[in-house]
């Protein structure tokens, strides 16, 4: 048997794909709901790919730290209420990312920017627009709230502004 004095160096690497598993806790999500989550995940991924002047008005490319926060909050939203995916994900010209819902006749938005807080806004025709803050600190995100806007919220930073339509 001939053994080469200088065998070719072969380096084996084994990687495990980083699959994200969605755990359904006691209910079966409908296909439209799952599709909606997938679409919003795609929207978020699309935001990551945007460069400078993405809007045609000179806006800067989104900040990756804001995108990371939005991704983390997206997973929190899935855990909180998988039956209620956001209907829209948007990037503001100034770099904030928003998740938006239409709940009956009200508009609900969770906006993430530079700070470690989520700014919630609830607007409905003929009613004062309400705002409240939610901390992005991991311990605060455990609370089962979010898409389900509380009519009497306990704001982190105070209900600083409300005005009639």
């Amino acid at each position: 048997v001939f053994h080469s004095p200088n065998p070719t160096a072969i380096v084996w690497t084994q990687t495990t794909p980083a699959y994200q598993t969605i755990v359904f806790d006691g209910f079966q999500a409908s296909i439209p709901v799952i599709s909606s989550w997938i679409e919003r995940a795609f929207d978020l991924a699309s935001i990551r790919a945007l460069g400078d002047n993405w809007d045609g008005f000179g806006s800067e490319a989104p900040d990756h730290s804001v995108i990371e926060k939005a991704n983390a909050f997206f997973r929190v939203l899935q855990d909180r209420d998988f039956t209620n995916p956001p209907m829209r994900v948007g990037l503001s010209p100034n770099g904030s990312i928003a998740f938006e819902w239409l709940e009956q006749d009200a508009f609900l938005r969770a906006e993430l920017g530079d700070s470690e807080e989520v700014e919630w806004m609830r607007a409905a025709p003929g009613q004062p627009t309400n705002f409240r803050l939610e901390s992005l600190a991991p311990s605060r995100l455990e609370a089962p709230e979010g898409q389900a806007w509380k009519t009497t919220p306990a704001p982190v930073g105070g209900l600083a502004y409300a005005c009639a339509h």
Partner: protein
Amino acid sequence: VENNASPCRRARLRLCTLIRGWPWYYETAGIFAGEVLLRAIPNARGYLTPSMGKWSVSPYAFEPNKKRDIDGMSFFREDFVTPFELATANKHPARVRVARVSVAQFRLLGLEVRCAPDETQLPGHAIVPEMSFIAGRTREEKRRIADLSQKLAQFASENKTYCPPGLPPPIS
């Protein structure tokens, strides 16, 4: 509101502009209560979602932009420029849509509209000074602007947006 710009660009000829004084109706003329203002909005994901009903136009379309809305939120008077002209003036590959809000609707929100002719732009440039981009606004001011933005988005959704022919899919 009048300003000192040279009265070089005349309004388009339409019945309403005839009533408003055409052919002596220039872009330096004060804004009439019955006018409609146009704002180009990005053809980007999340800026127009019909399933969002009264908010099908995203409030972000009316968020002050630090590059575009320095002296006030930028609009164009429909008396001077068509939605098609405004849409085609933007040379971004994804192009833009055009939202419409009437001056009466601005007044409902307590917003002043001021003509601001700019020879480097299309005719009929106007601004809403209260919606200018200001860095370092307080949280309360930001919330007030956010509320105005969502209300303008409701008006724009109600008025329908202009989609130029051959608009490509939103940028992604």
